[in-house]
């Protein structure tokens, strides 16, 4: 059942050009960034490690944004296009339905990652950072994407509306992304430090900084950043479990 849902979503992404367009946008952004980093007068003066860190932030950022947008409609579209009733009239469980959709979202992330790979390899040439760069982008990106997808699915099951889910998911993404992107310009206090410690995007960027700039490449050296990401995924899972229970209680057709 999971496989059928996963394959259906992959084909839907290709047939409706939805995924293809996102992947095209991602590759254009990666090309544009790489071009700027290599040719812009000021940017090309950056140290290679700084340049790699900037590229890593772009790859993870684009990945998280694309997957959040996609995940916000992948579940809700079944309700909005009235296909959910027919689907749940077949012997499919909510667990299989969610798992199939989740694997489809992670597959889209895999495609973004595959597209990013040549850029990573070219930008890392001449250094020994290509492999850690690839490995940590995969690990950190996957944890970040997984947590966000579970949150987007949880919201989808609660709202059953693409607009509401997309708005809420993007607000959550921005709440995490803005402090992470502008951490150096924001005032440091206990609250912002605490938020920074639990903020998944902050942890992803800090870990990439640790790997690419400070050459701290072992898992143990990055555990303080990876652990909060695992907790973020656990939080997403708990939220999704709560939403799924509520969904099962309400039924496939919401009784408004």
């Amino acid at each position, binding site marked *: 059942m999971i496989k059928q849902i996963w394959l259906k979503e992959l084909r839907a992404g290709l047939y409706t050009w939805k995924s293809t367009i996102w992947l095209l946008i991602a590759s254009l952004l990666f090309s544009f960034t790489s071009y700027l980093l290599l040719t812009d007068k000021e940017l090309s003066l950056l140290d290679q490690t700084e340049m790699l860190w900037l590229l890593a932030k772009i790859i993870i950022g684009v990945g998280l944004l694309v997957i959040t947008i996609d995940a916000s409609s992948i579940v809700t579209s079944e309700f909005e*296009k009235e296909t959910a*009733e*027919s689907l749940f*009239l*077949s*012997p*499919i469980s909510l667990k299989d339905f969610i798992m199939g959709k989740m694997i489809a979202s992670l597959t889209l992330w895999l495609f973004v990652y595959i597209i990013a790979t040549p850029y990573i390899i070219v930008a890392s040439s001449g250094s020994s950072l290509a492999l850690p760069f690839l490995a940590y982008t995969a690990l950190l990106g996957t944890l970040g994407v997984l947590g966000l997808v579970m949150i987007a699915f949880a919201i989808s099951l609660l709202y059953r509306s693409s607009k509401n889910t997309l708005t809420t998911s993007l607000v959550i993404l921005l709440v995490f992304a803005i402090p992470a992107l502008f951490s150096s310009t924001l005032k440091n206090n206990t609250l912002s430090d605490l938020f920074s410690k639990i903020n998944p995007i902050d942890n992803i960027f800090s870990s990439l900084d640790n790997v690419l700039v400070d050459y701290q490449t072992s898992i143990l050296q990055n555990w303080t950043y990876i652990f909060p990401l695992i907790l973020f995924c656990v939080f997403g899972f708990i939220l999704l479990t709560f939403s799924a229970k509520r969904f099962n209680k309400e*039924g496939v*057709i919401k009784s*408004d």
Partner: protein
Amino acid sequence: MSINEIISIKGLSKSYGSTRAVDNLSLSVGKGEFFGFLGPNGAGKTTTIRMISGIIKPDSGKITVSGFTENQKEEITRLLGILPESRGFYDWMTATEYLSFFAALYRIPEKQADKKIIQLLEQVDLLKSKEKKIGTYSRGMKQRLGLARTLINDPQLLILDEPTLGLDPQGQVDIQNLLMRLNSQGVTIFYSSHLLHEVSKLCSPVAIINQGRLVAQGTCQELMEKTKSQSLADVFLTLTQTQHD
């Protein structure tokens, strides 16, 4: 629940806010029957069908389908074929892809599914359009495809909510003939429709609900005698207007 019963509903109730959609409904459908389920708009027909299929949960009451209770959803869905009121389709799929997808959900082996799909598309007269995208189909074609989907798992019980809606007269006759043939092969059909002439032609017995409550159940002949009416339409109007008054 008797051996001959396939659906048993006892004291079923469902409210949406302050509106009582289904109110203490009890009825039973026997195996092999072509059961007509009638009621005016908003009478609670679709809510009842959705509760039988497990798509929505009742507030109270008990539903048994072929001996399985509502907690055994998977067992129920395997023996049911339901054409729901909301008929969304994956417009980017072809009819063959759509039916293959559902066949896979029912874990029907691929070769067996391929044969079954051709047979079903032939039965609903969509064989010529099988490779066209569903998005290009007319409403009637989608209706027929929906019916083919409900038959993919060779159900023992078919629950149909307005199955001939949107079909031209020839399409209606074709579907009626297909349903009569299935019924003669032993498939129980639970048929919800507004088309009273169609129900009186196909169904026996018939249940009429109004404002969520069962107002009459019996063969068309019994109901006509009981209400001293000349047709099922008269029976329907007499019973539902009495309730409104």
